[in-house]
């Protein structure tokens, strides 16, 4: 599975990151803390605006549901009370979905991962690191982490799992979304496999972030 990422690729936002996960490519950007609209403002915590744009055509309810899922994850990790009465805006543009319209697992996993990098790039306070992994279960019950478009098509269920990362190790679940036909046992297996993989994903992100810090650190020692 390829996973390439880069930060600070856009210069008019506070933070940005691109993610290339093989067939799926996503750019995410973060603006914030910025001034919210009056109706968004929250007195004790930051407001969160999540926008997801589809690779082809305009966004519709499909992207709305994805936004809802991303918001559920981000509202757990962003330390909102650092930015009361402020807005944090996250925009994800899918460049290549790498899956059929009926599926969203590959996109969601890439969006979550690129948002993580973009939030760090924007210096938004996070309570924990996090990483996402998409998994498909084949007809024979085999688990595939990071399935291809074809594997996803012939799978019986698809899953996205997001783990919180503490001290470089996955600690607890932040989010998990499964759809298709699967058993209870398979859920536990998916969660276990995802735990291993999100750890690996995070290791790759550490490298990306190390490069970012080196680049940002203008005074060389």
């Amino acid at each position: 599975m390829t996973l390439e990422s880069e930060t600070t690729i856009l210069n008019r936002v506070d933070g940005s990151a691109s993610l290339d996960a093989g067939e799926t490519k996503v750019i995410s950007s973060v603006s914030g803390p910025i001034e919210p609209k009056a109706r968004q403002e929250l007195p004790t915590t930051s407001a969160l605006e999540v926008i997801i744009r589809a690779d082809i055509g305009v966004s519709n309810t499909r992207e709305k549901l994805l936004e809802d899922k991303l918001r559920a994850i981000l509202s757990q990790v962003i330390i909102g009370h650092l930015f009361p009465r402020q807005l944090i805006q996250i925009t994800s543009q899918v460049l290549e979905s790498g899956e059929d319209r009926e599926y969203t697992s590959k996109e969601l996993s890439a969006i979550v991962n690129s948002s993580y990098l973009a939030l760090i790039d924007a210096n938004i306070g996070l309570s924990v690191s996090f990483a996402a992994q998409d998994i498909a279960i084949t007809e024979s019950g085999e688990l595939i982490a990071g399935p291809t478009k074809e594997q996803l098509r012939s799978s019986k269920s698809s899953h996205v799992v997001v783990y919180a990362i503490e001290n470089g190790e996955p600690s607890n679940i932040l989010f998990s979304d499964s759809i298709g036909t699967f058993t209870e046992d398979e859920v536990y297996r998916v969660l276990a496999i995802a735990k291993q993989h999100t750890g690996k994903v995070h290791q790759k992100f550490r490298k990306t972030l190390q490069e970012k810090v080196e680049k940002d650190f203008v005074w060389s020692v």
Partner: protein
Amino acid sequence: MATTIDRRRLLGPANAKPLVFAPLPEEYQQKLQIDASKEDDIESQITRTFIKSGLITNANGSSFLELDGNIVSISVYGPRPIRGSFVEKTTLSVNLEDNTGLFNDLLNKKFCQYIENNFLSVINLSKYPKSGIDIFINIISVQDIDQLYLKLLSLVSDATTLAIIDAGIEIIDLVVSSFDYENNTVLSYIKNDEIVGILGESEDSIENLSKIIEKTQKKSIHVKNALTTHLISTSQ
């Protein structure tokens, strides 16, 4: 339906055509035929009617009415503050939501206008300045949209009266409506003989007006009795 693509609703493929049904064979149509004497018998209609108020908990007032295959649900929101400049009197708005797919825009407008007219003259509007009252009519089922839509309108009007009372909004008197099948006319009364609304859609309804008034007035007294009995019994 809007010609532009609606991104906020899942409306399915754009090239799908609505179903076109062949006309019902005669034996079925007979079953649906309207019995004029049954439509005139207001007392038995009242006994067949099912009414319930206050079912919708997040509205200020609501009512649910069922009669002869007509099902309507009314919710009243308000008086609630409105945005914008100061108004001395409350503003009334009426919205009709059709769940049956039988209403066209014109009929929808007719219904809303009739209800709005009825209640504008009955609600104590100056008691609620800077406020708005929104009435939402939900048509859930219709007995006969072609011939008995004004009967439905009379039921909507009666149900709205109950919903407004349930919301605790001050009105001069109960608005009671009655429908005359023969002349396809609906009239709404307060204080037994004051007319607050009339809608007639038959050609000679004007000529028969005095006859219609006499007939519907009698009916409306029965309806009023039924509504008051209902209100007293539910308030206890």
